[in-house]
């Protein structure tokens, strides 16, 4: 014969189970805005039945109620993986876009303070000198125009160098930050595996780990794979790789190498001499940025050194008002070091505006032919068909094209990320209306179970009053 209290126990289990479901709903509603939170579901199953032989039941099974068998989180592993790689690409192109915007700011083109205008003004002031070679005021103007130009060369070059220095610093701090996250992933792996072994469904730890992996992926592109136990079941741990290099293996984490390099414009980490390709992340963007900046720097140096050589060649063959000859107009060898020869700054009359006088003749004050020749360098083809100015313009055009393509990349990647985030949110995100509907459902169930308890209680009251 069944226990008189079976019914009250069954209804009691419903009270407890519905209470648990409402607790999970409460957790979902609370975390509706928590980044990385995956909505959880309390899975209900029947309690093991009770077999009895008695008056009411002729050797049959009777249900004993309901229980929460597990609480699971809703995730889509495939979308998560794709989002990880899309986010890495997004933060890489974001870094590159930022770098290029900064570079464009340094060059300040098109504008009156850009080198294009300053170089052109430098050359045209030699034209003015050519027609007024004896005028010391114009000589001073030539010097100050030349100094404005060399100053801008120096400033762009210094700016590019500083950017590289800053990026190198950022790379090291990014790696430190990434190493910290890598350590946390390994620790969480341990805790999650413990949970899986004990069947406690460590959903929140898994969310936390996903969140950290996503942060890591922002810094440096990573791929992940689920670890399997010897029986072939996931053991809850996740392995993490950069390129082919393992950085988290179960509970073990490895330091990310701090040396970087660029091969064919692609960013790499150097692991004990072996290059490992970085697929995205701000780290990838930074390494690539340094390489791009080095290219711009070298192009600028070529312009500066060509300008130095060409102008000096003509200038040193010419003659100053004071008969001085053989002087260079510029000192220095590249964009960082180009300067107007200090001798000319202190004595503008030494600017060699004149060509060599005929044998036995002294320099003619109003011979501006050498100044005219220097000025005509502006239009002389030196780089193939390009003059110095055209070559510089082509460099600026390239910077513009790079900037444009990284901006487009970033916009495209952002759209992809947004789309994948929507897909992820569709699976893992909390919907308040849905939770409220569930809440009403389980609230009613809870009320019904409570009603059952009350009814059985009054039945038991009747039974007990018979005894009195």
């Amino acid at each position, binding site marked *: 014969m069944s226990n008189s209290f079976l019914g009250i126990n069954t209804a009691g289990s419903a009270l407890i189970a519905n209470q648990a479901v409402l607790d999970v709903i409460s957790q979902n509603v609370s975390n*509706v*805005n928590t980044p990385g939170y995956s*909505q959880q579901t309390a899975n209900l199953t029947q309690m093991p039945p009770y077999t009895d032989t008695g008056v009411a039941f002729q050797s049959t099974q009777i249900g004993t109620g309901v229980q929460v068998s597990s609480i699971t989180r809703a995730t889509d592993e495939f979308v998560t993986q794709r989002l990880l790689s899309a986010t890495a690409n997004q933060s890489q192109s974001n870094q590159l876009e930022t770098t290029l*915007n900064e570079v*464009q700011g340094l*060059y300040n*083109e*098109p504008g009156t303070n*850009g080198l*294009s*205008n300053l170089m*052109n*003004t430098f050359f*045209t002031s030699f*034209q*003015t000198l*050519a*027609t*007024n070679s*004896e*005028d010391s005021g114009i000589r001073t103007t030539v010097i100050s125009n030349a100094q404005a130009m060399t100053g801008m060369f120096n400033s762009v070059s210094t700016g590019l160098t500083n950017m590289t220095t800053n990026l190198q610093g950022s790379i090291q701090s990014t790696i430190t930050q990434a190493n910290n996250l890598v350590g946390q992933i390994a620790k969480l792996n341990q805790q999650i595996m413990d949970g899986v072994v004990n069947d406690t469904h460590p959903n929140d730890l898994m969310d936390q780990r996903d969140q950290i992996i996503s942060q890591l992926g922002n810094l440096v592109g990573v791929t992940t794979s689920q670890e399997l136990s010897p029986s072939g079941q996931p053991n809850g741990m996740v392995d993490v790789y950069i390129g082919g290099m393992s950085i988290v293996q179960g509970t073990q984490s490895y330091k990310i190498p701090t040396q970087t390099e660029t091969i064919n414009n692609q960013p790499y980490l150097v692991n004990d001499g072996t290059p490992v390709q970085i697929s995205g992340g701000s780290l990838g963007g930074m390494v690539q940025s340094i390489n791009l900046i080095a290219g711009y720097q070298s192009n600028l140096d070529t312009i500066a050194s060509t300008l130095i050589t060409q102008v000096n060649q003509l200038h040193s063959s010419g003659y100053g008002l004071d008969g001085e000859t053989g002087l260079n107009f510029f000192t220095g060898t590249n964009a960082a070091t180009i300067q107007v020869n200090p001798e000319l700054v202190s004595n503008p009359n030494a600017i060699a505006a*004149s060509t060599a*006088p*005929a044998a036995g*003749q002294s320099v*003619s*004050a*109003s*011979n*501006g032919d050498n100044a*005219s020749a220097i000025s*005509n360098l*502006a*239009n002389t083809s030196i780089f193939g068909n390009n003059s110095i*100015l055209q070559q*510089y*313009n*082509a460099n*600026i*055009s390239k*910077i*513009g*094209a790079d*900037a*444009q393509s990284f*901006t487009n990349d970033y916009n495209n990647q952002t759209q992809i990320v*947004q789309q994948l*985030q*929507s897909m992820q*949110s*569709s*699976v893992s*995100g*909390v*919907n*308040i*209306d849905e939770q*409220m*509907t569930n809440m*009403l459902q389980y609230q009613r169930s809870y009320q019904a179970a409570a009603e059952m308890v009350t009814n059985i209680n009054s039945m038991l009251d009747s039974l007990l009053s018979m005894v009195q």
Partner: protein
Amino acid sequence: MRISTNMMLNDTLNNVETSYQNYVDAQQSLATGKKLNQPSDDPAGTSQALSLEESLGQLTQYVQNMNTANSFMENTDTALASVTNLIQQARSLAVQSASDTVSNAQRQNLAYQINTIIQQIGALGNSKDGSRYLFGGQKATTPPFTGSNGTFVYQGGTVANGNANLTVDIAQGESIVTNVTGDQVFTGVLSTLTQLSNDMTNNNLTAISNTDLTNLDSSLSSVTQARAMLGANVQRINSSLQRNSAVQENFTNLLSQIQDVDISQAAVRLQSSQLAYQAALTATSKGFQQSLLDYIK
């Protein structure tokens, strides 16, 4: 597709942000009037715009060169016109003095007038344009003619010494000589007039009518030749100035096409982006008004 609460929020936020960005962009382009603010706005256009700016800078410089050259040549021509007048005066004095009806005393007086003309022409040989002597060749900072007791010795640049020509660039790869040196024009005139004056003083009528008058005529024609050369160069500069200004106008238009915003287009874009932004905001405010929570009591 299942829609989570945050998904709707994020999508709405993205839409509002995008339409706001478009709105701000449209506003900025209308406010600045520029569509080319940095190379990435139009990489190929930037290179073109920089080249055009450079060319415009150079064209302006050539205009400045040509104005300098024009002023120099006009002043030279004015001086040479005075020289022509003076030679013509000297010629009529010579014709007068060649006649035997003129007394020796009168001829001395005429010789004195010739000496005055010599001084005037010598002074004209040292005329200036600003700080430059017109007839000194490349030695334009010192007086080309020096001398004492009414004689003038040329000290300026000469073809033989390779310092005769003042050259001015008037266009890319095109230059002109703007000056006439004193030895080309003045030296001959001055020596002819000095000879004339001597012949007058010595009453050498044969020399006056046979050689001096011929020499005066050839001096006159050398001055006329020099003026014709200047006139031709001034014309060349004027046509080059016209060409230059046509090219400048053309380049300025091209530059404007590359870097300036089409105002009517920009205004329309501002309107439509404003509308889109308002629509996004409206959708946002309506979308979050309703929830099951409103109905649970």
